[in-house]
């Protein structure tokens, strides 16, 4: 039986839940990454910070707090207004902006469970230690397809080219 341990790509992340969002923005801009795992100070996985979450947090909060009000075609904002909102966002902890609802798997979980999650709503499935909750690795459709084709994954290729480090699957 193929387990997640055999497929996952070992992953670390520099983003902590209590870091300011500014640090996350620096990181994603430098690495061109759209999805980054977030851990607490005990290195336990706590959620994902994605480009979508950052963009949503950059919208006027009063219009995103109620479902159905998030069409804002009447707003005519200047760059200065957006910049002001970004300044406010950068001070907030990552924990307030990230998505804490990600489903996780354990190393010995059958791969089919990770596949099922990937076929649903998540792009990446974190693999965590069942006892400590520490982030061990991640599985994406790249890692699965690369394994089946016997090829290095997309991120591994980038890493081999010296363009990627640290995170991603």
């Amino acid at each position, binding site marked *: 039986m193929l387990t997640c341990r055999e497929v996952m790509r070992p992953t670390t992340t520099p983003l902590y839940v209590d870091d300011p969002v500014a640090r996350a923005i620096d990181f994603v801009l430098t690495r061109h990454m759209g999805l980054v795992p977030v851990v607490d100070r005990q290195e336990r996985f706590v959620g994902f910070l994605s480009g979508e979450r950052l963009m949503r947090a950059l919208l*006027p*909060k*009063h*219009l995103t*707090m*109620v479902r*159905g*009000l998030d*069409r*804002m*075609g*009447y*707003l*005519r*904002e*200047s760059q200065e*207004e957006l910049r002001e909102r970004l300044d406010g966002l950068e001070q907030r902890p990552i924990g307030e902006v990230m998505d804490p609802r990600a489903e996780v798997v354990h190393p010995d979980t059958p791969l089919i469970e990770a596949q099922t999650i990937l076929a649903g709503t998540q792009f990446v499935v974190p693999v965590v230690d069942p006892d400590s909750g520490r982030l061990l690795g991640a599985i994406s459709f790249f890692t699965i397809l690369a394994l089946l084709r016997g090829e290095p994954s997309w991120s591994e290729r980038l890493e081999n080219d010296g363009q990627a480090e640290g995170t991603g699957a």
Partner: protein
Amino acid sequence: MTHGGDAQAVLFGLDPLWLSTAIFIGAYVVLLSERVHRTVAALLGAAAMVVTGILSQDQAIAGIDFNTLALLAGMMVIIAVTRRTGVFEYIAIWAAKRARAEPIGILIILALVTAVFSALLDNLTTVLLVVPVALLISDKLKVSPYPYLFSQILAANIGGTATLIGDPPNILIGSATGLSFNDFLLQLGPIALLILLLVLALFYGVWGASLQTTADLKARVMRFDERGSIRDVRLLRQSLAVLGLVILGFVLGEHVGVAPGTTAMAGAALLLLLTGIGQDERGKAEQVREALQEVEWSALFFFIGLFVIVQGVQATGLLERLAAGLMGLTGGDPMVTAFTTLWLSAAVSSAIDNIPFVATMIPLVETMVPGLGGAAAAEPVWWSLALGACLGGNGTLIGAAANVMVAGLSERAGTPISFVRFLLIGMPVMIASVALANVYIYLRHFL
């Protein structure tokens, strides 16, 4: 449990009066404790009334006011479809720009918008749509959001007082008594308008000077383009046309014997028919499904449970005894009874949900009608009940559903309203407005 006929075979031969009183009090205690969802509490109470044999199944069903349910459900569908058009945001932004982005001007004009919407639609939907826009504007102007939040709550409750469809207590009273949309508008509209204007004058006096901003920040609000909020022009035309017809139906309905519930349901059906034009079968089905998803089924089932509980205590004579007690207290004098009802309902409604209170008071007042000298003599009591229940909601942050909704929205926006802070504004406004309503009832009915 019996299927039809009179109440009988009460469980273990217990006294039906005591048993129904125990169920009634038990259900209300659970409701007030909020440990169980209010719909579940009401349905359990209703089930207990039938299972213990206090009511037969037919009696329980006869106690359900289907006109109220139809009015609520029909308006929920119409509002759910209409809000998708973006027209509420359009009007709120259009109105704010008419005030030239002056903070106090926006506060007053948005309060007026909320009051009018609350009178013609329902105040929960109104605050749900207008409060986020008000918060956005206060954020853009860099002024305190609290005056806007407080004015929205007060305006929603005062506006809802003005018409039969504005607030659930009025829907219940109108349906039980046969008092029409026009009766409510003519009786309660003037006093609601007067109270609203006085409250806005108070807000102007209290916050007019302190709500200041810069020309640059005002320009940000003036750049809003309200036309951008309209998402579907065809749907907008259809919704406004049906909404206009429904309101016309409310006004004319009493002359042709059509109850408001029928009008609202017919309007909802017409709107669903219109929105389906030009769509394939799947699209039509999807439209209907989406609209019905927006119906607050839990609220409708809450009402069903409540109606059956009240029917139970009515059938066993509890309400008759309470009415006799109240009549003894007021000496059967219509004026004293009206004023007592006004202040009692305001006090109770400021502390607890006014819907179960009014649902209980209706059969109680009905029982008192002969003793008060007939339907005409009792009419001021009905208006007092409506005014007290609706205006009482302004007393505390938990006094009305709209208050709780605004409190939730403001908390999510990072500007939570404290109970005491609202109390310091809401309670004096509530007491002053009920006093004004008392004078109004006196001048209009007893002078």
